[in-house]
């Protein structure tokens, strides 16, 4: 049985931890992704978005002195953003419900809790690729429809399944 073919996918990985960036890139390489970019903070990441136009961004939340949420807002709202619809997976050790809501309200597509596993990352990539939600602009928010309840909607809660390890 064959599965998703990730060979043509371009992915940007933003995390201030070099070991985490390396681990995620190794997982992606194993999934078949050939083109990857990396950044250690939100400013660097946004420059990569503008110059390399990745298909998916996987970003950490806390990247002192910057913040993954700032990156999300820049991608969604900045006039210079090459793709405001860019799928963004927020990767973080913060798993409290109010944090998940905060990420969702910034315009994140999906949420993946650290510690991560290859299985959990694979599942998130698949759900993001299948995501058909419309985007909504209301007030200061621009992002995937937070009210959509479609089968393809990525799970925004915390990944706790043991088989994800």
């Amino acid at each position: 049985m064959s599965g998703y073919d990730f060979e043509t996918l371009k992915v940007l990985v933003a995390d201030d931890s070099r070991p985490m960036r390396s681990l995620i890139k190794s997982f992606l390489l194993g999934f078949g992704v050939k083109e990857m970019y990396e950044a250690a903070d939100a400013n660097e990441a946004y420059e990569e978005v503008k110059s390399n136009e990745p298909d998916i961004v996987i970003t950490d939340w806390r990247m002192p002195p910057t913040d993954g949420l700032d990156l999300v807002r820049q991608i969604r709202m900045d006039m210079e953003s090459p793709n405001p619809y860019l799928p963004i997976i927020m990767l973080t050790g913060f798993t409290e419900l109010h944090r998940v809501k905060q990420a969702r309200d910034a315009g994140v597509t999906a949420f993946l809790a650290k510690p991560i596993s290859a299985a959990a990352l694979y599942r998130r990539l698949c759900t993001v690729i299948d995501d058909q939600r419309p985007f909504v602009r209301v007030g200061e928010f621009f992002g995937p429809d937070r009210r959509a309840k479609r089968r393809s909607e990525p799970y925004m809660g915390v990944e706790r399944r043991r088989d994800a390890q």
Partner: protein
Amino acid sequence: MANRPQKFQPPNRLAKKVKKSGGPSAEKAILRALNAAEDLIDSYQGWAVDDLAELWKAYEDAHAAGHDAAQIDKMFEIAHAIRGEGGSFGFQLISTIGDSLCKFLEGRKELGARESEVVKVHILAMRAVFRQDLKGPQPSMERDLRQLLALLRERMG
């Protein structure tokens, strides 16, 4: 008047670009990913020892500085990084202890002598996990440790 939501259907570039067949099965892709990361996972303990040394130094600096908010923030930053990395590299217990330490430190402006001992216990527990090489899933130990650390935070915090 409240803003009316505007809806846009984004061009589904990813669905066009990524074929849903032709690649390896999910099981094979995940296995390949684990194989690709094998060397990194083996190297993690070396990096983690450096992180732990940095955490210990932050703890000692905090002690010397009278545990002000900036020093506590620094310890939180390191503990937050450790909790994210530990389980990702196979040391689930490190994430459990790191998570407990983050819960203890988050939002604190100062640490007294008793609270400082709680931090020390967490760091020593992490050291013990690496010394004993307690890698991989340890569900019962993880559950016990989580309860024990929660009790410690409650009694001493």
